[in-house]
Each structure stands twice: as structure tokens, then as C-alpha cells.
């Protein structure tokens, strides 16, 4: 009971003080019932959320006749690992994995550098017009991608960049508003006194960024790196527009094309989908805390 100290429950914690008037027995029973209902609802929701994952992996290991049965079989028998090599041999999997990694890693590197510089300027430096620029940037975050999509395509086409990775990588060298915002919020939380002390010691802006901000901002930078990597890994529309050669496809695009041509081979499709999903799930399990913190910070500002 002492651990109950938030919202719905805080209210209940406070009942502790009021329970004299309520009668201890009925209060405790009410508490127990409430908690039981909470658990039931949370676990029902939990099962609904997790079930598609089981269904995915289970189907990916089934023979066709076990896939097409009602009621469904949850544990495949026999387990058909063959779906994986078979599915992956239908399209240049390794090649597309390599493409995806090249795009995701270089985008992440560029995003980190450019967004840090801009966020530093928007948070730690004071200059005329800074807040106007920051406001403009926030406004662009609301801009639908479709509005700039066609002129950008025309620009890249005239640069001969279509069917190369460049349109998917290079824009990240110019700062990603969402990450600039995230980093700015974090930089603002670092005490300003540190800058002043460094200035007195003769540090210029570059020095402040390198010796004060960067070492302290590691958690925020990790969040940005993770989000950007994930964003590039998961991106579909970008590769769909800019890549037209299967050897240049990223994995999501390759798997979409594969799925759209493999008819009723659900075992293969689920195998390919599992291969696309597992890396991000593993990444998530190792970095959960960073994810949850990052998303909480960015979604709160009203």
C-alpha cells in the first residue's frame, strides 16, 4: 500500500487517511477488488498486444497445410525452419540488408552532428532572431511530407540522385527538426553557470560544446541515434520513391515487393517479416529505458 503513490492510486492512498470513516474492512475489500480489476484489464490488453507477435513467428514456422486450418494451430508441428532460407533466397536479402544498414548508419551519423550543432545554437547561444528561427522550425514539424515531396523529387532527379542512396541520406546533414527540438530541451536543462565558468577560462563556443555539453548530453544523443536508426530502418515511402532497382532496395521495400508477389505463401511472408522485425525488437530490449525516456520528453511539450 505504501507503494501506491500516483494518480488513481494516490487517491486510494489517501483513502488510508479517510478509512476511519469508511470502515477498514470494506475499504480493504474495495482496494483488493480494484486492484484485481486493474490486473485483469492490463493483462487482457497485454495479451492482445503480444498475440500478433506469436502469430507472426508461429506462422513463419508452419507448413502450408498447418497455415490453412481452422481453428488455428499455435505451435507448429513439425517446425519448418525451411521457410526462412526459402523466403530470403527469393530476393537479394543480404544485399538489401547491407543497403539498409548503409543508409541507416550514415543518416544516424549525419543527424547526430547536424542536429547537435543546431540545437546548441538554439539553446546555449543568444542571438537576434534565434527564437524566430526556432519557432519556424517548430512550424515545419507540422508540415505534411507530401507538401515538399514532389519538388524534392524534381531537385534530386536533376542532380541525378534518383536510384541512389543520396536522397535518403543527405537531407540528414541539415538537421532533423524533431531531434533538434529533443536535444534543445535537453541542453536547456544543463546549468548555464558551466558555460559562464568556461567562458571566463577562455573557452569559445566550440569549446563549450565539446567540453561541457557533449559529455553531459550522452543520454540525449543516444536517444537521437536510436530514433534515427530506427526511423531509417523502418522507412518505406522514401525508398519507394527514390529506389527502383532491386539491388538498391532497402529491406522494407524488398520485403514489400516480395510479399506482394508471393501469393498465398504466408509462411515465407511471415518469415521475411520476422527477419525485418527481430533486429529492432532486440535493439529495443537492450535500450528500452532510453526509448521510453526519449518519447516521454518529446511528447509532453504543449
Amino acid at each position, binding site marked *: 500500500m505504501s507503494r*501506491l*503513490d*500516483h*494518480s488513481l*492510486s494516490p*487517491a486510494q492512498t*489517501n483513502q488510508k487517511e479517510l478509512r476511519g470513516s469508511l470502515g477498514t474492512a470494506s475499504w480493504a475489500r474495495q482496494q483488493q477488488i480494484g*486492484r484485481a480489476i*486493474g490486473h485483469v*484489464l*492490463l493483462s487482457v*490488453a*497485454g495479451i492482445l498486444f*503480444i498475440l*500478433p507477435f506469436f*502469430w507472426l513467428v508461429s506462422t513463419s514456422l508452419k507448413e502450408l497445410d498447418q497455415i*490453412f486450418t*481452422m*481453428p*488455428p494451430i499455435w505451435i507448429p508441428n513439425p517446425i519448418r525452419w525451411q521457410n526462412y532460407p526459402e523466403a530470403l533466397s527469393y530476393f537479394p536479402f543480404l544485399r538489401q540488408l547491407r543497403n539498409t544498414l548503409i543508409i541507416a548508419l550514415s543518416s544516424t551519423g549525419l543527424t547526430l552532428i547536424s542536429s547537435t550543432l*543546431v540545437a546548441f*545554437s538554439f539553446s546555449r*547561444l543568444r*542571438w537576434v532572431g534565434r527564437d524566430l*528561427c526556432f519557432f519556424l522550425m517548430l512550424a515545419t514539424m507540422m*508540415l*505534411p*511530407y*507530401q*507538401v*515538399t*515531396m514532389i519538388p*524534392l*523529387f*524534381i*531537385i534530386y532527379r536533376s542532380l541525378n540522385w534518383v536510384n541512389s542512396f543520396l536522397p535518403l541520406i543527405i*537531407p540528414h*546533414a*541539415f*538537421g532533423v527538426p524533431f531531434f533538434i527540438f529533443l536535444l534543445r530541451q535537453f541542453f536547456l536543462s544543463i546549468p548555464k553557470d558551466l558555460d559562464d565558468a568556461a567562458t571566463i577560462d577562455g573557452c569559445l563556443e566550440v569549446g563549450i560544446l565539446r567540453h561541457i555539453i557533449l559529455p553531459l548530453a550522452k543520454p540525449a544523443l543516444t536517444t537521437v541515434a536510436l530514433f534515427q536508426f*530506427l526511423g531509417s530502418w*523502418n522507412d*518505406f515511402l522514401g525508398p519507394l520513391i527514390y529506389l527502383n532497382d532491386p539491388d538498391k532496395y532497402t529491406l*522494407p521495400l524488398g520485403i*514489400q515487393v516480395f*510479399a506482394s508477389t508471393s501469393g498465398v505463401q*504466408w509462411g515465407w*511472408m511471415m518469415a521475411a*517479416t520476422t527477419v*525485418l*522485425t527481430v533486429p*529492432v525488437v532486440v*535493439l*529495443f530490449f537492450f535500450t*528500452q529505458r532510453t526509448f521510453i525516456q526519449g*518519447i*516521454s520528453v518529446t*511528447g*509532453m511539450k*504543449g
Partner: protein
Amino acid sequence: MKILLPRREWRRLRVGLLFASPWIVGFLGFTLYPIIASFYYSLHVYTTFGQPMQWVGFSNYRELLGQDKLFWVSLYNTAYMVILGVPFHIALAILLALLLNVKLRGVAIYRTIYYLPTIVPVVATSVLWLWIFNPEYGLINAGLSLLGLRGPGWLADPGLAKLALILMGSWTIGGTVVIFLAGLQDIPQQLYEAAMIDGAGLLQRVFYVTLPMLSPVIFFNFIIAVIGGFQTFTEAFIMTQGGPLDATLFYALYLYRNAFEFFKMPYASAMAWVLFLVVVTATIFVFRTSARFVYYEGDGSK
């Protein structure tokens, strides 16, 4: 300029602009120019391939609004998703966040489970749910048959396809849940205590304390979801190709087709500008009406 600004301010401006320059260049080249260019293109048509575009004034807009039935169909479908889907997902997310906020044992595990689907690549989600919605052997109709119900055709049924996509969208509300949970944990305890002393019951505390205090976070996420809703693309592109009977022909999908399948880039640019105006109008509308529903702390006028 030098006259207006003292020497020190002048240096600050230079340094600030230098650090912010990646974003400034990006803003001018990748945002501002494309917005303007998009409008310019929308006043033209392509004649023959490789020839320069021909000026036609506003005739693309006239065709779009006056003659193009699919434009209105796609606008209707998109509005349907936004008006039905967004409030549904937000309400669901609030409910889950409230449950998670009751400090029960194992809450961290539930939170992880709810969040997990949001990191899955949208291509994987789409292919997986295509299988889950399979009318004969899919997971959902298997579940319904357990209850003795005959499941519908879901994505194959023009009347249900959009609802199916909304249902699928609830699988990825985990990010919003995490954000709301963080918001809930920011609500000061005293408010609940005060409400308790005034004799407020559980529901009253939720409606008169929790929701008003959470309203800025809800509002912010509502706007983000509305803007995102107007850009629904990948699910429809992969799962239904806009069908059946154009029931899932969303705005972004129809725009994409005009631009990259029918090669009517100027026409698609006109669509992009209409989208731009619709999103701006919708945002302003939400902001205007929000004054009545959103409570900002320290804002006496409510």
C-alpha cells in the same frame, strides 16, 4: 545593421547563425523552396515528355475540386480515419495510461509490451495484419469463431476496410500511452488529496482532476495524430492498394499515384497544396476549440 547592433551582439549573431547554419540551409532548400515550387508547379501541366511545363493558371485546382470524384472520395476516406480513428486511439491510450498509473506489480512489463509494436517497421505491421485480417484463416476471425460468430471480410469489405485499419492502428498506440503516463505522473498529489477531502469519488477524480490536468498533453498528441492521420499511406499502399472499391484510397495514396504512377506531378502538387491548406485549417480549428477543453496551469482565463 552594425549601427543597430552593438559589436558584441553582432559577433553573437554570427556565431549563432554559424552553428544554426545546417538547419537554415536545410530550411531554405528542403522546406521553403519546395513549398513555393510546389505551388508554382501546381499552376502548370506537363504536355509531352521532356518538354517544359505549360502554364494553366488554376485549372488544376478547378479540375481537382470540380471534376475529380476520386479527390473527394480520398478526402472523405481520410477525414473518416481522422474523425473516427484519432479520438478512438487517444481514448484508448488514456485508458491504458490510467490503468498503468495504478502502481500495480509488473507495470514496467506491461508498459514494455504496449510499447513494443510501435517500433515494428510499418511494412512488417502491414504484412502481418494482412494475415491477421485474412477472412478464412486469420487470427481475428478465428477468435470470432470461438465466440460462435462468423467473421466478416474485413479488408475485403468496402464497408469495413477503414474500420479494420483503425483497429490495426490501436496496436501501435503504445507511444501515446507512454507519453500520457509520463503526463499523469506529473500531476501533483495535493490535487487528489483536495478532491478526496471534498468527497470526490474515483470517476469524479478522473474527470475533474486527472483529465483537466492531462489536457495539454492530450491536446498536443491529438494535433500530432490529426496531422499524421492526413498522411496515412503505407498501410493502404501495402494492404489494400486503395481498395476495395476505393474504400481505403486515402489522400496521401491518391496524391502518390498522381505523382509517381500517373506522372501528373503538377496535378499532385495542387493536391499537396490543398492538403497543406486543409492541415493548416484543421490545426487552427483544433487550436481555436481547444481553449474550451485545455487547461493550462497558471493561465487564469482557463
